[in-house]
Every structure is written in C-alpha cells, then in structure tokens.
C-alpha cells in the first residue's frame, strides 16, 4: 500500500511525512514524527487530549487525517514554549498547580491558547464553555480555569 507524501509546516518548520490513507494526524504526530506531546485519550473526539491547532483552528488530531494536510500549518504543544521561555499559559499552569497526571494538559493548553487569541478577555463562564471539549479526569477544573484567566490577564498587561 503506497504511502501519501505530505508537506506541512509544524511549529514553524517545514515537515514532510508519509502516511496511509486512514492514518490520523494524532497517529502521524506520535508514530511517524515521534512528537508524543500530543496525547491519545479517547480517539473519538470526546476528550480533547489530542487538541492541536491546524490553520489557526483548534481541532482534535484524532479526527483529522494526515493525508488531507498538504500545505497545512500545524501547531502542537512542542512549539508552545519559545526556547527555554514558557508560554504565559504554561507558566500559569505551573503557578496554579493546574495539572495532576498531565495527560489532558497539552490539549487544554492548545485550546486555551486558541481561545485567548479569539477572546483575550474572557469571563470565567466563557473559559469553562471554551474548554468544554477538554476532559480532565483528575477533575482539577477550577485550577485550570483560574490559570487560564490569570494567563489572560498577564497577556493583556504585557501586550
């Protein structure tokens, strides 16, 4: 079975990969490219652990095929920190202890980043609705929501 050859941009770098027709972006990232920061939770779009950003929109990587991504711009958790400088969301998740086991964290960080790009000053309710597609089974939602609101305030203050 021939593999499709796809050229994309991942976290700003041009990346080529080969994939089979039914191979999801989640599988491409983790298996073909060794980028295991994107987590495999449910595989059916329910948990949001595999949330990445494709062409500016947050999506579940388990519900996107690699083969449809010719020319796409993909952002994953591996590209969130700039060198050794954490993204404000990452820093606030540490400050607020907004994670326990950490499996949901990369997806939540990507979703929160997309949310704040669209709405830099969200209410608590808007953050909770915005993260409704990301499940945390350690159930640390309050700390997560506080970290996102704090990061949003920080990002507004620092432009």
């Amino acid at each position: 079975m021939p593999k499709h050859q796809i050229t994309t941009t991942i976290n700003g770098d041009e990346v080529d990969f080969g994939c089979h027709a039914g191979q999801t972006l989640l599988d491409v990232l983790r298996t073909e490219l060794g980028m295991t920061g994107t987590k495999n939770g449910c595989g059916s779009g329910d948990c949001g652990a595999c949330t990445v950003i494709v062409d500016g929109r947050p999506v579940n990587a388990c519900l996107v095929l690699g083969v449809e991504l010719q020319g796409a711009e993909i952002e994953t958790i591996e590209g969130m920190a700039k060198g050794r400088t954490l993204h404000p969301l990452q820093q606030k998740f540490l400050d607020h202890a907004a994670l326990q086991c950490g499996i949901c964290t990369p997806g939540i960080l990507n979703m929160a980043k997309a949310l704040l790009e669209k709405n830099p000053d969200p209410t608590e309710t808007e953050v909770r609705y915005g993260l409704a597609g990301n499940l945390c089974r350690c159930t640390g939602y309050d700390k997560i929501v506080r970290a996102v609101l704090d990061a949003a305030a920080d990002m507004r203050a620092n432009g």
Partner: protein
Amino acid sequence: MGTVTELKYESPETAQAVVALLSGVGPMARIFAGGTDLLVQMHEELIEPTLLIDIKGIPETREIDVTADEIRIGAAVTGAELGEHQELKSRWPGIVEAVELIGSYQVQGRATIGGNLCNASPAADSVPALIAAAAKVIIAGPNGTREVPAEEFSVGPGRTCLAAGEFVTSIVLPKQNQRSGDAYLRFIPRTEMDIAVVGAGACVSLNDDGTCASARLALGAVAPTAKRVAAATDILQGNRLDDGVLAALAKAANDACAPIDDKRGTIEFRTKVAGVLACRAVKIAWQRAENR
C-alpha cells in the same frame, strides 16, 4: 482502524469526479468532509470503507454564497465558519445557533452542515432549523443535480434519500419576507456537549398588522427523523401569539411526537418537552421577526 491498509483516499476537484468515484466503488466508498462522525465510526469499526472521497477540494462545497434571493451554503462549510459569517447570522440566527450547538470548539472547527444532515441522526441539531427554514438540499448524482426539501432528506435513523452515486453539494436557504425570524432550541440534561433529548426549530413571518403571515415548526429527537409539524402552520397563520394559539401549538407539537424511551428521556417526558420548546422557539422567532 482494522483494515486501514486497504483504505484509499481521493480528493477530487469537481462534483462530477466525486459521482464517478462513488458510482465506480459503490457503498464501500464514503464521502469525507469534517470526519467528526465518519472517523469515529471507522475508529469504532462500525464501518470499514475502502475509499474515502474528500469533497473539501470542490470549491462549491466550501463556499457561502449570499444573493438577494437566497443563501447557498456548501456542504463542507464548518460550524465555526457559519458562526463567523455575520450576514448569515443576522438573516438566519436560528440555523447558526443550531449548528453551533454541535460538539466542542474542536468539533466545530471540523464538523460540517452537510455532514450533520447526511449522518441522519434523529437528534441532529441543524436539521429542525433547516426544515423550519424550508431549506433545500442540493444533490449531485449520475443524472445531474436534483433538489430535495430538508424534511424529505432523512428517511430513518442513519438513512437518507441519497441514491447510488449521489452526494450533497450544498444547502439553499430561501428568500425571506421582510419581517421574518427563526430560532432553534434544544433540551439536554446538562449545559453543553450533549445530544438533543428534544430539539425545536421555528421560522415566523409577520404581516404589517403584526399577525402571522406564515410559519414553520419542526421537531428533532422525537421521531425516527426530524419532522415538520404541519399543523403548526395553520394554527399560527393569520393569528397573534395569544394563550389560545400557544396552547394549540403545544398540543400540535405533542401530537407530532413518536419518540423512543431511552436513558436520556422517556416518551412522556420528550412529548411534554416538545410542546414547551415548540412554544418557546416560536416566541423567539416571532420576536426576531418583530425586531427586523
């Protein structure tokens, strides 16, 4: 995905090419747009197609075309894109509300209006809103193009009127009267991320004297397919929204129900809620028409 090595992927650029592929491969070929239902069904091994035909490369499936007369929405336009389209939102807020209720933000970025229709769930949120709007479904097939009213598109749970070789290219919303409005409401046991226990879509046009010129009501999740409540049109037409009219409307909605009993709602509960939501949706649509 068990038979992943046997699967092929094609991304044609014309509707004719899609029809040729569908006709050649038969039922083992599946149309692929957002993938939020299809890839889940494949993941759960409910289906094992041999060919995925990605229709997103066909320009007409990805466009929202607004004219003075009608609005044509490509089948592969996503919920997120519909929600960002200001003209569509101001003309058909009910349809946009219905589509935006489907899934999380992540799902909204992928799930398409054509996919919601073709998945043919009795509880599909967009469908009662489309039926209330008198939307038409544009279908391409081996014999050219045909149109089907939204209420005739689904013929049972998971089943559509599509014949071999056919697929949906777009959905057309008709020209509206000057003073008209639409609305969609659904009941779910939580506030987000759930499947409708009952859904109600309404579209109302008003005369200059404030009486109802025309109206359409449709219900979801209370029968094998979303269905229009034809009696509601007669009850509303020529009248104002007084208590007697609302009581008759609720009764018509109750009478239209043929729901199932399941973990999300009993027959009795769904039937009662259908009447309540029907009245509320009509009131919102009415108010929007008044504010035009």
